[in-house]
């Protein structure tokens, strides 16, 4: 998809020289792979990319990408990224963080950058556990989970990250799975093309502290039946041969034949259908949606900020040191 001028890259142009320190078998490797492959294809000069991460296993991501990168502090990558993007909207700013980083300590910055529609892309590696601190339950862990901090089972109800993103007004909301690399690449591409904030939840396996957390929906055997890929403008179909589909009824969603399936539209004004479908349970009959839940246009904060600066500068004339110093009432002492 590269034009004449667009740079042509290989995956390895995005591999840094740092030795990788994730556990063998960690799902983060697959995501790294997908991101490196995707970035090579986006047609963006590599010096324009900035990866911003928080603290957590996932946040080590930054060190493995041969782009500009900033490994910040726990929970704040979206806020740091907001500053970077506002300071220089030319940069392609991607945030990588964990479910703890992004939704526990960093939840507020997350929802505020969503509502503001700052043009950053946020990838949350959701392994439903705190990896780096050696396995405590996270705000996306299922109730009843036994971990270091919950030896008798956790009691908190988890967030539904998709619902939260919709509620906070994210203009792009998607979900994918670490090991489903072609799907991940497709979503990354769409996130890149979306003008505005993009939220991508990536289900990620932590082999050490939460192994096989997503097996029931992602393993080869069940994947086709338990997942449905929400593709904009396409029928909502699933199954090994895409032979089945979903249809909205006034009060529910029902499984129908492929031909009767509703078309999926992530652009509607209210987002109510996305909200409805993201409530599908992992343990019911309905398939769990992946793909693009929401994709709408809204003014982009970083662009608007610069437009306002230009607009005011045009109206008032560009400020000089002299005009600044001498503004207001002045008088002369001789």
């Amino acid at each position: 998809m590269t034009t004449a001028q667009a740079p042509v890259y290989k995956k390895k142009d995005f591999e840094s020289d740092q030795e990788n320190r994730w556990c063998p078998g960690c799902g983060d490797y697959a995501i790294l792979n997908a991101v490196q492959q995707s970035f090579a294809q986006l047609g963006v000069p590599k010096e324009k990319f900035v990866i911003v991460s928080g603290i957590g296993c996932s946040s080590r991501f930054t060190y493995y990408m041969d782009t500009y990168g900033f490994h910040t502090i726990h929970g704040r990558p979206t806020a740091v990224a907001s500053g970077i993007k506002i300071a220089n909207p030319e940069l392609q700013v991607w945030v990588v963080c964990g479910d703890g980083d992004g939704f526990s300590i960093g939840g507020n910055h997350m929802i505020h950058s969503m509502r503001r529609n700052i043009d950053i892309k946020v990838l949350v590696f959701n392994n439903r556990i705190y990896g780096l601190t050696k396995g405590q339950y996270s705000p996306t862990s299922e109730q009843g989970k036994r971990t270091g901090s919950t030896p008798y089972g956790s009691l908190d109800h988890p967030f539904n990250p998709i619902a939260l993103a919709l509620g906070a007004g994210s203009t792009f909301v998607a979900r994918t799975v670490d090991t489903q690399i072609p799907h991940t690449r497709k979503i990354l591409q769409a996130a890149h093309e979306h003008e505005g904030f993009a939220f991508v939840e990536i289900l990620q396996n932590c082999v050490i502290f939460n192994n096989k957390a997503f097996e029931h929906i992602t393993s080869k055997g069940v994947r086709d039946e338990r997942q449905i890929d929400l593709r904009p403008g396409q029928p909502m179909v699933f199954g090994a041969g895409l032979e089945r589909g979903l249809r909205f009824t006034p009060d529910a969603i029902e499984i129908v034949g492929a031909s009767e399936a509703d078309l999926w539209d992530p652009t509607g004004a209210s987002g109510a259908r996305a909200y409805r479908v993201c409530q599908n349970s992992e343990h019911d009959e309905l398939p769990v949606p992946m793909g693009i839940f929401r994709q709408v246009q809204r003014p982009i904060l970083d662009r608007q900020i610069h437009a306002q600066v230009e607009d005011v500068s045009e109206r008032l004339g560009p400020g000089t040191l002299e005009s600044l110093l001498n503004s207001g009432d002045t008088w002369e002492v001789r």
Partner: protein
Amino acid sequence: MSPVPALETLDEVVIRFAGDSGDGMQLTGNQFTNSSALAGNDLATFPDYPAEIRAPVGTLFGVSGFQVRFSSRDIHTPGDRPDVLVAMNPAALKTNVKDLKPGGMLIVNSGNFGAKDLEKAGYERNPLEEENLEHDFQLVEIDLNEAVIQAVAGLGLSNKDALRSKNLLALGMLYWIYNRPLDSTEAWLNKKFGNKEQILEANLRALRAGHKIAENGEFFQVRYEVKPAQLPPGRYRNLMGNAATAMGLVVGAKRAGLKLFYGSYPITPATDILHNLARFKNHGVITFQAEDEIASITSAIGASYAGRLGVTGTSGPGLALKTEALGMAVITELPLVVIDVQRGGPSTGLPTKTEQADLLQAVFGRNSEAPLPVIAPCSSSDCFWSAVEAVRIAVTYMTPVILLSDGYLGNGAEPFRIPSVDEIEPFEVQFRTEAEGFLPYARNPDTLARPWVKPGTPGLEHRIGTLEKSDGSGNVDYDPDNHEKMVKLREAKVMGIAAGYKPTEVFGDPEGDLVVLGWGSTFGAIRSAVDSARQKGLKVSQVHVRNVWPLPRDLGEVLGKFRQVLVPEMNRGQFARLVRSEFLVDARSMSKVQGKPFFSSEVLERIEEILG
């Protein structure tokens, strides 16, 4: 009309306006200040308002005050006690009259001394009738309510609306007494209410009516004149400390060849900096009102990383929230200016009152060894110069800098001599663009600063982060010796800033019985006190420190020339503690923690006590 009254010349006058939060006292005080400034006086102001936005009318806690001192001499404080008190209601009288100088002029709005007003102020009897106000002061009772209603009659305003202009009536009177023209306030009214004709007209009439009433001689027999001060020649403007800080930041950024990014979250008394900067869009300034203080500072750090000048401003509770992120700026060695306009604490404390008690938080309040420089302006106009200096240090040394202002400086105003552009040295930033030999943590041998690279620069892609970094490469490094080396390098860089300070100046003789050592906003009170004490023949000098961290290297030696060291501070001895630990000098603390600045008389008394 009475005979033309006498025109007495005074060296200086201190006026305090006091009234309800809704009475417009801040506005009145500011107008008076501006005309005094235009008249060429030196001046200083002290606004003092409650934490409530507009507390119920007439209550004690709803009283808002504004003190202005204008003078024909060089002055440093808004004055200890007013010569004139304007009290718009019983509550204002009650909370302020104890400060009025004996024999001072007391102007009260008798129209607001009804039974209900008195009750709200907790007066059992009408003080105008019962107490010896007339004996102690030059009491002037005027029913401003009645006067303003008359003045605006015919404009079709309700009484309630008419009464809104009574502050301007009072202002008109004072303009007459102090022989000031009305024109600057008239111009201001025209600008402000240009499109609200009725209100404009009411205000103009009230202002002129006040002038007339004073002129007709029933209430005032004397006019006073305060001659222009002998300020250094130049063009001046009247500037509040927070506005000066805002301007200094923009000027500093321009001198660095950068554009400013200001990330902030509103908090009293720092919000005005945000308000000021938000108006400077045509200077390329971006302001970002973040969701909290943590996002304010982290977005500013992001902006610095991206090649702008990241600045964030707050007050004490906000600084507490920014401390973790400050550590990130320290370890990533990015430039950043953090402004703390200190207020009364602890915790939410006394949000609208002043204090200097965040010093140790600024110097030490971060996890682990995270040294950074701290600068404290000494006057409202010095906020400008200190802000420029903070920017210079931040970009020269690639370090976060804390600028410690306070509520007294931030809200106070004084004449500011506008510097010419050449007076402000440029310190243009050179971004690294050369890929050859690039190391993210290589150091400039003079400053120990690392290179600043704008993301987007081809060939310089690299990663920074908050884990300990390898000397030179900046890669993650857990090696014990590298860690110690980096800790010491960061320290050496910051402590090295002191090498660039000018020698410490002493006001007065370089040796003697006592030196009064100060920092920040105590400057004016100390200077006046030391000046008076020296005129009385006491062997006392003043040393004032603007770069409070790292401390000037010669400070120990300078202080050592005096038999005693006294440190007045609006805290419990924090700067004294720093000086003691650094130089083993027996610096003694003079502490005042009342949410109010020192009176110079308090400092003078203490000097006399010590040397007496």
